[in-house]
């Protein structure tokens, strides 16, 4: 049999200028979807950066705590119980508070030092290395042992007027040795800072020692005689090397099954739970989902127009193919191939443009926009689905081509 003829490719590539325009149309749709997905993911990601930085294999969390934003904690006894389980290397408490940390503006002018702003405060044992924060050295962690010191977030929400206040955050200038007030007590910023960023719950973050956290934030609201650090927000569980994470997770779940006051989650499960909360309890999912759908529909219309015009341009030739004995399914497959070629040729440049837009938007907005392989994969799937759907619609036209018209 004669060698196959790549008809779909030839039809598309025959007029190069037209083909470039076709690919540009699909690229546009890919970028539209990619940017919407990027912003959506960036917003969801921003809420889980802290969990990403958590150095833990498993996390103990209160089952009623749908988000880190809420207050419900885990009793210290549960952490101690977890420590006894075989395979557990260490158990480290992490304290988080979104409500009680009020940071006074750091501006030098006393006239403007009246302004305070709520800030997230995280309390950890400086020796625990429970947070993996690039840029924070062991010396910085050592400095944190002194009560009244805090590490600061360089990526706190920027001041809206960067022209007048370049490099300043909404809390003022955050840098080493700056002295200000946290919840009415003097505090000194130490170290070179870390990068967690702002999100829906907070404009920035301070990390203090668990001791400072207990005395300054929890102490005033804890009855006398009660340990202010008895209630832990997150318990980071690290396992011995080579231990099966799921097996230990099941052991811990079995251990706490009677009490039902602890959820034992892997870190990725914890991240997914946090994202799910923000996805379902904010308009992010809907707003950007509509944006992605809009991009999908725009791309579908563009692709449909391309395929329809190709069918109209080649109606006589397609009719001839039918007349000489090609079945409808062959012609449908040609249209489908054209759609897949358009998907491929539009996706590759679209991916690069999307990447460029991510870099630009990250720079401008401070959002952390990351194009990971799974996200690029999702974008590819959406692009293929978009083109295949348009081909499915256009196939009707090629099926209607009447072979009798060729005479």
């Amino acid at each position, binding site marked *: 049999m*004669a060698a196959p003829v790549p008809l779909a490719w030839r039809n598309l*590539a*025959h007029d190069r200028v037209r083909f470039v325009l076709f690919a540009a149309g699909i690229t546009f749709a890919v970028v539209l979807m990619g940017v919407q997905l990027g912003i959506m993911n960036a917003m969801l990601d921003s809420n889980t950066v802290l969990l990403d930085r958590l150095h833990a294999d498993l996390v103990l969390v209160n089952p009623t705590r749908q988000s880190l934003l809420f207050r419900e904690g885990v009793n210290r006894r549960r952490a101690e119980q977890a420590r006894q389980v075989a395979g557990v290397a260490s158990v480290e408490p992490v304290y988080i508070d979104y409500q009680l940390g009020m940071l006074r503006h750091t501006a030098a002018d006393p006239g403007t030092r009246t302004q305070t702003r709520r800030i997230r405060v995280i309390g950890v044992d400086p020796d625990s290395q429970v947070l993996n924060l690039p840029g924070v050295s062991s010396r910085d962690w050592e400095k944190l042992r002194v009560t009244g010191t805090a590490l600061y977030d360089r990526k706190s929400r920027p001041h809206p007027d960067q022209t007048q206040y370049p490099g300043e955050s909404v809390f003022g200038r955050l840098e080493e040795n700056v002295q200000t007030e946290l919840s009415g007590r003097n505090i000194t910023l130490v170290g070179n800072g870390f990068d967690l960023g702002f999100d829906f719950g907070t404009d920035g973050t301070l990390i203090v020692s668990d001791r400072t956290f207990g005395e300054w934030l929890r102490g005033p609201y804890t009855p006398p005689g009660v340990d202010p650090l008895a209630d832990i927000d997150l318990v980071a569980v690290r396992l011995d090397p080579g231990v099966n994470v799921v097996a230990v997770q099941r052991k811990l779940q079995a251990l706490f099954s009677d009490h039902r006051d602890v959820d034992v989650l892997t870190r990725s499960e914890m991240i997914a739970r946090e994202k799910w909360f923000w996805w379902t309890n904010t308009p992010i999912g809907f707003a950007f989902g509509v944006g992605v759908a809009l991009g999908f529909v725009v791309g579908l219309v563009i692709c449909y127009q391309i395929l329809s015009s190709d069918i109209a341009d080649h109606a006589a030739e397609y*009719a001839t193919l039918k007349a000489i*004995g090609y079945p409808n399914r062959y012609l449908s497959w040609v249209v489908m191939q054209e759609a897949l070629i358009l998907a491929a040729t539009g996706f590759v440049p679209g991916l690069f443009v999307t990447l460029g837009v991510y870099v630009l938007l990250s720079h401008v907005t401070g959002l952390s926009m990351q194009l990971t392989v799974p996200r690029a994969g999702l974008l590819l799937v959406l692009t293929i689905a978009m083109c295949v759907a348009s081909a499915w619609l256009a196939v009707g036209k090629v099926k209607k081509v009447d*072979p*009798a018209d060729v*005479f």
Partner: protein
Amino acid sequence: MSSKTTLPPTGSPVLRITGVNHYFGTGDTRTQVLFDNTLEVMPGELVIMSGPSGSGKTTILTLIGGLRTLQEGEIEIWDGERGDYRKLRGTPEPDLVHVRRLIGFIFQRHNLFDSLTAMQNIRMAQRLQAGPSDPDANAQELLQYLLLGDRDIQSKPQKPRFHYKPAQLSGGQRQRVAVARALVNRPKLVLADEPTAALDANSGLAVVTLLRNLARARPDSELAALVRDENAESESSGLASWQIALLKTIAAETGTTSLIVTHDARIMNLADRIVHMERGRIESNVVVAERLFVRDGLRQSPPFAALLPEEQQKIADELLIGVHPDFPARPDQLAAHPGRVEVFEPGEDIVRIGDPVNDQSKFYLIRRGTVEVWRATQNGEPLRKVAELGPGRYFGEVALLMNQTRNATVRAIDRVEMYTVDRATFDRHKTVSRPFIDRILENFRVNGERLD
């Protein structure tokens, strides 16, 4: 190439159309465009369909090709791979697709993909069949023959157009690529709509010669007559000698039937059968060989030889049954044209000596078979065999002319088919050539030697 295909049994058609009606539109706008059309086409025939615009030629072509749904009547096409006829009435689309693959279509417009080269356009057709071991060589041979290879009609070297896209080809060259696409699988049935309309004389001749040689092999002398004079002006029409040589390779397999809608007089003269349509009806279906056979047979007879050619043609056309004289007529074919051909079994007397001449008396032209003539030289003597007559010979005109009894007995030796002219027809035309006939009669009266 369809080398595994078989032709229908001898005497059976490759295409049979029976009582085909067709309508366009629905409801109040429903209009009948074809009326009770019946036609048989034999293997290897070159059939020309003629008729004015709107007479239904193209519609019937699309019905034969399975491109339209057959509404009434039946069309049967011989499927050489299956060894059986495929009926188109009520055939579902997937089966129609298979029917279409049996056919080579040549359209008035080339309908080539502008994105594909000549070879790729042809390959689109080749992909539908398990073809020869080297499909590209097969396609290139066809293109070469059609003057798109490395030699032109004057045998001068030229750049092959194998890998040219349609935009780089002239209108005629594109049409030739389309012809190659239609014939590359060597279909046993070709449907063509004005295939030579866009072609120059040389290319048109090449296409028609190819179709004729795919139908049946032609003697070398016939092909040699087509070779153009190399020393003549460039306008001289004909084929190059290398084309003739190539033709034998390309058309090694014969038996292709072609139905061609055309107004090109150059092709008309080459037809085996001419089907004329008027207002949706097949008005005439003439096998050219049969018409020549009958006309030449009649011409031998002095009463008919005296007629004007138009009158001879008219009588001949009234005798035709649409079957090549090489083939015996089937009963249904005889029944479709009652009174035109009579059949006599071996030993049966066709006329007897002494039979009176009356209104039922006829003039006979032998179509097939052999008869023997018996007569008495003198009164009272027993009959003796004086002659044997074969196809193309005639008898029975003298008794009709002289209004006297038959003077010989004519008996069938084997199965004999006979064209017959009845007395009414004979007498009608006799008046036209009265002076000539009188001279003939005088001659008979003087000599008294003529048979019957």
